[in-house]
């Protein structure tokens, strides 16, 4: 038994490597059983996905911590989902059994229940080995809603002003990409809350002063949903610090937190910034100085207890008061 297993496993490893790294010889239809089969022909897309949090969905240590290492199996549904197209539009996905390590992989979004893959490209080469077929809902928010509406992000999008909504999630999170060989497609890195530029494009911070004193405003100028959105752990903090007479800086003072609280945080309310909305806050004193130079910053945290030093600083602006 031991000997045959050794040989068997070694043979399988080599075979799999050959399969993944060398494109298929012909356009013979593939029986798609794993996303690794996609990598040979779509290496550029795979490379983008490799950098994404979709790829990281199952292994993400923060998810592991919050889900008690997936002892809370409910989390698996979106962190290792079955193909979305096998569910009705907008309905929640369920967890798969195989290759969970690949997280939200190619087959999660593209595998078609009748075989082959779904694509939003109406001119897809239908005789390609993966047998692509046009599926209208691939570019609809319903496709993403299967996972991303658990915290009402898609509902927020539906309520957003038309000028910020665009046509759907992919406008911002899957921008157009022109690849080698003239191939045109969509970026599969799914840049969002883990990407500084994506975060900065969502909101605009301004500071100023008027008859009522110094203030800061934050406007949701770019997100077709609340800021922050999705998981309740996401938080954005506006903070100010003042310069003392001796030139030293005081401590950062909290101005406002934007966040949808956990259900058991009954003393808190939802303070997310809706799409298109602007909020203005007076700059609070630090107890030592209320005039002179001030700095205001916006920090983004992927969990509400993340120390300042680990949070992403989206903006820092100065003003003289």
């Amino acid at each position, binding site marked *: 038994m*031991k000997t045959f297993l050794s040989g068997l*496993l070694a043979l399988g490893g080599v075979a799999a490597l050959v399969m993944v790294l060398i494109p298929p010889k012909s356009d013979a239809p593939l029986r798609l059983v794993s996303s*690794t089969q996609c990598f040979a022909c779509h290496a550029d897309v795979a490379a983008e996905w490799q950098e994404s949090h979709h790829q990281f969905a199952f292994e993400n240590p923060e998810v592991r911590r919050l889900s008690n290492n*997936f002892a809370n199996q409910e989390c698996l549904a979106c962190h290792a989902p079955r193909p979305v197209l096998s569910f009705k539009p907008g309905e929640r996905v369920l967890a798969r059994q*195989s290759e969970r*390590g690949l997280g939200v992989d190619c087959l999660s979004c593209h595998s078609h229940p009748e075989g082959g893959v779904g694509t939003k490209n109406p001119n897809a080469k239908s005789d390609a080995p993966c047998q692509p077929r046009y599926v209208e809902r691939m570019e609809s928010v319903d496709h993403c809603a299967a996972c991303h509406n658990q915290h009402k992000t898609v509902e927020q999008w539906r309520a957003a002003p038309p000028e910020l909504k665009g046509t759907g999630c992919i406008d911002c999170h899957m921008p157009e990409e022109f690849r080698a060989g003239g191939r045109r497609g969509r970026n599969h890195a799914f840049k969002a809350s883990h990407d500084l530029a994506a975060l900065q494009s969502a909101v605009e911070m301004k500071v100023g002063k008027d008859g009522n004193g110094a203030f800061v405003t934050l406007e949701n100028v770019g997100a077709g949903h609340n800021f922050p959105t999705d998981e309740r752990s996401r938080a954005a903090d506006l903070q100010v610090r003042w310069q003392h007479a001796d030139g030293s800086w005081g401590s950062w003072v909290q101005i406002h937190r934007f966040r949808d609280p956990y259900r058991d945080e009954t003393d808190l309310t939802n303070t997310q910034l809706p799409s298109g909305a602007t909020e203005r806050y007076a700059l609070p004193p630090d107890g030592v100085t209320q005039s002179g130079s001030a700095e205001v910053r916006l920090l983004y945290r992927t969990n509400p207890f993340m120390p300042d030093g680990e949070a992403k600083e989206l903006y820092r602006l100065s003003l003289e008061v």
Partner: protein
Amino acid sequence: MSKLASAALSLLLLAASCGEQEPAPAPQVEVVWRAVLDEQLKAFAEDGLPEVSADQISDYLEAMELAAEGGQMGTRFHMRLEEADPLELSAALLAIVENRDMEAIDKARAYAWLRARGSSAMMPRLTLRLKYEKDWVANVDIALALLQHGSGAGLQAFQNILATEDSSDPDTLQQARFRTMKALAFLPPSDRWQPGDGFDADWRRLLEVQAYWVKHRRLPNRDANKATRDQRAETWRTLSKLISQRLRPVDDARFVLVRMPEWAFEPIIETSLDQDRYVREHALQTLAWIGYPVGRWAREQAYDLQAKLQSAIGGGDSRARLFEAMGASGLNEMQGTLLQWLKDGSMEEMTAAADALLRCAGQEPMAELSTMLTSNKVLSPEARYSLALLFTEVDAIDALDWPQGLDSSEAHRRRLWRLEREDRP
């Protein structure tokens, strides 16, 4: 190692599958789903806990407050609560403890009255309080109320309270420990233990009863208890939450269902034939989470679990979940079906079948499995790992021979299943 490379390494035998060999078509079986939940909710519409109005809840709040004040008036309100309809009282007091904005003192009184006068129909909703109630003393009341109605779901709370030594609130902990020690007197007696034998004996008995509960979902020295009509009504209402698209109600329902006594197994099994895909998926997964107690119960009750589950095998959408439930029962009569689908199923079905075989197969199919592995079979890393673990029962496998590319938590889950095999029904 990049994910591309590790995935490549992990996908043993996949290349062979992409060649000439095409798998045989999976067996086709027709299945007729039923509106199980709709039918049962209709049948039990008049049973279970009644709806209560805001006025009724206010009356109960007032009665509990006045009853706590003592004196003549207190006695009168105490009597009023004693004489209240247990179903109405349970519904009103559960509404109080489920309300996040309610005062802690009101909740504490409600829990105490639920323990003293609650109907057994409160069991599902009271079990859910174990998930959300953070107050230790309240947890003692919940656990004791459940125990008195034949559920050991709260025994873990007793154990946690007694095992906790340090707390930021030592007075509350002390109070909870004191009340837990008193509550242990309500554990089912045995030939070797009676209430009053002392703390060490009580603690040992707690662990015994809890182990028995975990294994059987029944308290020791109790007959296989049958549910009342009101309890069944509330159980069906809990099951109806499985249809939710929002995760929280599903999560809550399953928290409750996996902690219910064995009489709840049959409704859960029935629900696995519901016409709604989400309902049957979640029911099947609940059975899988409960695991061997379902198989043990089926064997004791001569309930043909295999035939029941087999009748859903035509439902391709939830077939992988079905295999999961079949395997989790630990009943080796499931292995024939699972072997067939390990040969002929899709990647998902084969993975689920391999995992299920790890949990329920005897040693009979080992030769067949080894033949299958040498025939360029398409198998996921998860399936290969499960089968390798199964093989360890008949032969040793060197560390280097273990299938690679499997996430450590997925490997750990399967190693636990391997360890649990000792305890198959």
